[in-house]
């Protein structure tokens, strides 16, 4: 039995340890794509080189092409270390050639670039501006929806259609004017949206201050137990009063910054990590309680556990808090999975 337990524990440790590594495994290199990129670059460079190109360019190209060949060989032999080296060398050479070709007037074969004109004209073509603004407006629409804000985007939508049409018709000057109008309209809408958001922000700030006050109570209680000087306790009490009376978000932030400064000054930050975890867990619990299909008994258990955690934080039982937090996190994860 002891052997099985030890074995089980070993497996658990291995899987948890390597669990972290598996994320990195995703980021491990996929050598096959190196060849694709290198070959594409090679083909492109090859198209650009003409008989008029300098011997240096031609020589470099031969060198680069050779690197691609050995890269392919290395990949066939599963020699990924060499493959990576060859890839980087090849790309370095192609970069050098490309730089040389694009800055050297005589050696660049313009005829081999039939579609380059369209991309060269981007300073006049405002497509990208329009694209970026569309992404931005999409974000604003999503936010407006989140606030149930009555904001009329129809004018903007019409302007986007108009600008798109103007770009399609190569009427770039008109399109730029329309885009300017879009920008002005966005500024107005943004103001309306910020107004709609400000009420919610005040509410969130007050809720956050309330949570922070709870945490501050625990901190003061612990500080008293640990025999922290009356002067520091008094400072914390004053800061607490100031925070309680703060109303708007900027005042709340300012007061909390002052409290943090006191905590830093007197080295009272050692429980902050646990407090942050408590806040996170509390948020998860709140989210779950707003979801359908969650067993009320499970939520009640979780809430009871959270109360125990806070009580233990009050009592300065930090190891117990750590354990309970971990248990509660697991419990909440189970609830999430059961949905």
């Amino acid at each position: 039995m002891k052997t099985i337990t030890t074995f089980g524990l070993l497996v658990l440790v291995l899987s948890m340890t390597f669990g972290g590594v598996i994320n990195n495994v995703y980021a491990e290199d996929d050598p096959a794509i190196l060849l694709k990129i290198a070959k594409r670059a090679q083909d492109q460079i090859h198209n650009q080189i003409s008989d008029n190109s300098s011997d240096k360019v031609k020589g470099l190209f031969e060198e680069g092409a050779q690197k691609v060949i050995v890269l392919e060989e290395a990949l066939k032999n599963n020699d990924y270390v060499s493959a990576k080296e060859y890839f980087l060398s090849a790309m370095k050479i192609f970069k050098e050639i490309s730089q040389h070709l694009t800055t050297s007037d005589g050696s660049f074969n313009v005829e081999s670039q039939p579609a380059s004109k369209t991309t060269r004209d981007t300073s006049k073509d405002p497509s990208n501006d329009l694209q970026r603004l569309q992404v931005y407006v999409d974000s604003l629409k999503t936010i407006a929806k989140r606030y149930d804000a009555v904001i009329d985007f129809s004018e903007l939508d019409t302007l986007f259609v108009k600008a798109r049409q103007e770009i399609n018709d190569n009427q770039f000057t008109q399109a730029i004017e329309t885009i300017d109008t879009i920008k002005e309209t966005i500024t107005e809408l943004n103001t309306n949206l910020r107004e709609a958001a400000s009420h919610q922000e005040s509410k969130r700030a007050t809720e956050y201050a309330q949570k922070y006050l709870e945490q501050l109570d625990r901190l003061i209680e612990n500080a008293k137990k640990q025999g922290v000087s009356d002067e520091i306790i008094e400072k914390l009490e004053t800061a607490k009063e100031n925070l309680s009376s703060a109303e708007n978000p900027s005042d709340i932030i300012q007061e909390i910054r002052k409290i943090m400064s006191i905590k830093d000054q007197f080295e009272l930050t050692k429980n902050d990590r646990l407090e942050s975890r408590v806040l996170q867990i509390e948020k998860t619990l709140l989210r779950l309680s707003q979801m359908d299909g969650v067993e009320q008994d499970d939520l009640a258990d979780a809430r009871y556990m959270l109360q125990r955690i806070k009580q233990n934080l009050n009592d300065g039982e930090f190891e117990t808090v750590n354990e309970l937090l971990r248990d509660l996190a697991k419990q909440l994860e189970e609830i999430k999975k059961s949905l």
Partner: protein
Amino acid sequence: MNPIIVPIHRKEILVEDGMLFVRTDGILETMVKAPLIIAGLIVVALTMPVQFSFSSTRMLDLTLYSDGSAHISTQIDVDPLEPDFEVNLFGPSIDNFVVVGENGFLLSSEIIGDKATIDTLGSSSVTIDYDIHDLISKDGRFWTFSLDSPITYSVLMPPNSIIVGMDALPSSMDVVNDQIKLELGTGLSEINYIFSAPTISATPSNITEQPIIDVSTIALIGVPIVAAIAGAIIVIKRKQTKFLPVLQTEETPRLQIENDSIETTLNEINFSEAETIFNFRPEMREDDKEIIKFISNNGGQALESELRKKFLQPRTTMWRAVKRLERQGVIEISKKDLQNLIKLKKDLEDEE
């Protein structure tokens, strides 16, 4: 001869001419308690997620435009105890900056230089979107994108761009609507590109290949799995429980239900639905359109894991894409066997 072990705590006084015998073959067992080490490792393993949980970038996606600008979308975990959070932007030339908290609420922010101070007010994660003009430089026809990234990130190259130089090794590559999308690692990376005629004729399916996984990777993943399976078999055999029949009986109807529902949906949704969605949402991102096409071709529904596999996207990137499409009202997300099932919405008008 049996050696005598003299425990230290006995503190027996040895006779002056005596000899101390120490049994060396069991010294490790005597001195080091294996369960203690394992318990220690467990504690280390358990505390790892806690250590990395605050103020860390979770996701970073870049879209490069052909005029040398770029769109950045990033998700950062922040400390919920902090009232605000200062984030380093990738440059000072910022446009269209939007930051939302975990609930999708707009957060106030102030940008000074290449730093933004965000009033998080207890949020534990923020999603930041902005356009930037500092990442790409141009020399003649030669463009250079450069980024020093704190995490693995994805970059969608501009249409018709051809990479002609790079000093970093991409971990994956995909083609999204004729645009190359690369996954790059942490640290400084530089990509040089030029614009050309559209030369990419290959479809995503034939461009994207199965990644070549080296032996060490297989070993790294395989060994713990094999060990776990072996352990499980031993435990099961010893306990002689009846878990297997239970699993089998549960599995059959589940698969049956799944097949039935897929068949039903296939009949209900035809392939032109993707076009309807694109007409409904003309502003939809090109990579999102690819996702819609795939779901449509898959009978109108797909598991999120299938999408990740198809588009070779990290979990967070795909989740953001899916959530984006949900917000646009073109898909709905439901749970199926603990997995996210993504379905195309039939009634698009409702979301308008």
